[in-house]
């Protein structure tokens, strides 16, 4: 019977063995789904609290404690020196900006193109955008020599009568990060409102009070929905150019400098695809972790979702490799002695192991495995591939920042960067803080957007035509 049904399915539907593997064709009653999401927020075992406390302690000591040590003792406790004036903190800035940008971008892209697998994962991606940009902002502050004067970069009238210099790419970067922080937060909040209203109607005590404030009086009237949908649509479309431009601005911090290996016209799109590569990989890692640790999440986050994301990862990996090849080929062929030295330093220098691991993690492994549907549907394999890409992308940024700064125009100053324990601790600290934010937020904000899943399920039905079952989708806007 099943074989016959399969044989009779049209070609485009042949993707799935059973359409019910897809969340949208496996509906559950609204109240049940809402309860599942509410339940997930209120259920946590002792392991959850152990992990949370350990991470919180690490953030307190390894991040804020070590940061205080850095502020008190100066940038000398980090590994930066002449000519490598930018080190691991800037690597973290670019890395977290990449993760963050891809979060909102993936969510917006999937919404705009109505991919059909986004309903359950957009929220997690949007959280990634906001939590990631917080880490990027923190890393900028770690990097500054006199961080207590950071507000001098903000264009506000001041007693010194000095406006910031908008010639500086760092100023553009500062504006870009602030803009993005605001936009991505709004983009997170908008689709959250109906869920908060749902939570408000299903909770008691402090939760009720909290949700009452956060839901902004959303009652689910026709007008409420109309305005909300319009706003979400505007933000989804706006998010794509915002992400591309903001990531390009970040790349200009490097591309506009005079350093060999940085002064490259391909850096803009190269950084955009790099952000996308690390971001989708990080999203997969987070989804697998949420799926396997949080209650009821196996229903929402399915192998079918990972399968779709795996295809996306494979394509992005190829585009990333294309841009990396461009970024490599042009200076190599150009033959400028310093540019060639930078390339040689990457390939044979003390960071060569990073260079080769980067190529293996970011291109070889995804290409070797992700073409296989079975592998794309194995959560822990996807988790590993995603984690390797995330690490590979950190290596990539490391090679771009301190790995490239080693070679300056003055050979007398060449030096190999030695990362210090302070930089390692703060890097891991941002990672712990990122994870901690997820853990804390998981207690009171839904990681799944039930209204979006319900909307998706309402527009997707399985029809019987003769003996065959045909999944069909209708457009609702």
């Amino acid at each position: 019977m099943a074989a016959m049904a399969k044989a009779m399915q049209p070609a485009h539907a042949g993707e799935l063995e059973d359409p019910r593997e897809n969340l949208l064709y496996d509906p559950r009653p609204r109240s049940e789904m809402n309860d599942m999401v509410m339940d997930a927020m209120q259920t946590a075992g002792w392991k959850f609290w152990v992990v949370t406390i350990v991470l919180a302690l690490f953030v307190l000591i390894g991040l804020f404690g070590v940061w205080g040590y850095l502020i008190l003792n100066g940038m000398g406790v980090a590994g930066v020196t002449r000519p490598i004036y930018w080190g691991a903190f800037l690597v973290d800035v670019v890395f977290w900006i990449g993760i963050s940008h891809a979060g909102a971008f993936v969510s917006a892209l999937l919404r705009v193109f109505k991919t059909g697998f986004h309903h359950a994962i957009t929220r997690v991606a949007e959280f990634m955008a906001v939590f990631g940009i917080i880490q990027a902002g923190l890393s900028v502050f770690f990097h500054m020599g006199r961080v207590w004067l950071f507000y001098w970069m903000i264009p506000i009238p001041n007693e010194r009568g000095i406006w910031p210099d908008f010639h500086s790419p760092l100023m553009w970067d500062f504006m870009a990060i602030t803009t993005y922080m605001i936009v991505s937060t709004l983009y997170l909040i908008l689709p959250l409102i109906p869920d908060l209203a749902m939570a408000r109607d299903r909770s008691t005590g402090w939760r009720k009070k909290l949700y009452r404030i956060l839901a902004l009086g959303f009652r689910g009237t026709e007008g409420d929905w109309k305005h909300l949908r319009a706003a979400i649509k505007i933000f989804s479309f706006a998010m794509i150019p915002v992400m591309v431009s903001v990531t390009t601005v970040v790349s200009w911090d490097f591309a506009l400098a005079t350093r060999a290996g940085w002064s490259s016209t391909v850096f803009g799109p190269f950084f955009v695809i790099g952000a996308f590569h690390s971001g989708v990989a990080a999203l997969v890692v987070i989804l697998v972790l949420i799926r396997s640790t949080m209650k009821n999440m196996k229903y929402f986050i399915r192998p079918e979702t990972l399968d779709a994301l795996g295809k996306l990862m494979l394509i992005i990996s190829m585009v990333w490799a294309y841009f990396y090849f461009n970024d490599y080929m042009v200076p190599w062929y150009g033959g400028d002695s310093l540019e060639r030295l930078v390339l040689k330093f990457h390939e044979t220098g003390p960071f060569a192991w990073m260079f080769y691991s980067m190529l293996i993690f970011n291109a070889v492994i995804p290409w070797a495995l992700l073409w296989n549907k079975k592998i794309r549907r194995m959560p822990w394999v996807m988790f590993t591939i995603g984690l390797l890409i995330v690490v590979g992308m950190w290596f990539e940024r490391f090679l771009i920042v301190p790995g490239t700064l080693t070679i300056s125009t003055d050979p007398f100053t060449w030096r190999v960067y030695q990362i210090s324990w302070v930089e390692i601790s703060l890097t891991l600290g941002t990672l712990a803080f990122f994870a901690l934010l997820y853990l804390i937020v998981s207690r009171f904000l839904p990681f799944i957007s039930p209204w979006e899943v319900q909307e998706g399920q309402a527009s997707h039905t399985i029809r019987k035509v003769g003996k065959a079952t045909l999944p069909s989708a209708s457009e609702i806007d």
Partner: protein
Amino acid sequence: MTTQTKIPETSIGQSTAGQGKWGMVIDQDMCTGCQACVAACVMENNISFVGEDDLAYGRGMHWIRIERFWQGDFPKVSSSFQPMLCQQCGHAPCEPVCPVYASVQSAAEEINLQVYNRCVGTRYCANNCPYQVRTFNWRDYTRPEPLNNQLNPDVTVRRMGVMEKCTFCIQRINAVEDKAASENRQIKDGEMVPACAQACPAYAITFGRIDDPNSKVSQKARDGRGFMALEELGTLPRVTYLKGGSSHGSNG
């Protein structure tokens, strides 16, 4: 280009893109690499002593350094010395990248200055300097007794987290200008001598007005051996190096 004329500090406006005002000539054929200029600069400009470990890791804060390059293969090997200091670029890569206007072109002296009080320590300027002559206060370096007594009262003492660099001894330029103004005369050629030139036992460093074609520094700069460091970058350096066919003037 209206925006550029509005903000002259960072622009390559007509006033600064010219020949410059103060300049220096360094004769590499005369330089013996004795480091007297380095020591004199440290004394004059209150430069911090960073200690052995930091110095070995490239964190020395000398505003002028002697770069020694080996030429040829052993045993026919010779050395050459290149004193490297801020080139006071007319079109400085360090200036536009500073988000807080800490790295600026001085309109009066036409040299590149660092305003310590404005610096927030992003270190972009130092990254972008092709000569790698900007130095950063990585820590609060202490001056043990009685070294604190040798601080030059005319020069600011910098603290942790700010960038600094050669100023062409601007405190001396100001003193000479004030003296000439009070005596109602022009500054004489050779009246203004920075600490490095003053200390150089080989007279390898000459300082003066490069906008005056008859000054000693202008005449030396026209020497056939003259070149500017990384001239191809278009930074318009105010320092001219003199170097003949081989080192130590043997083939001068």
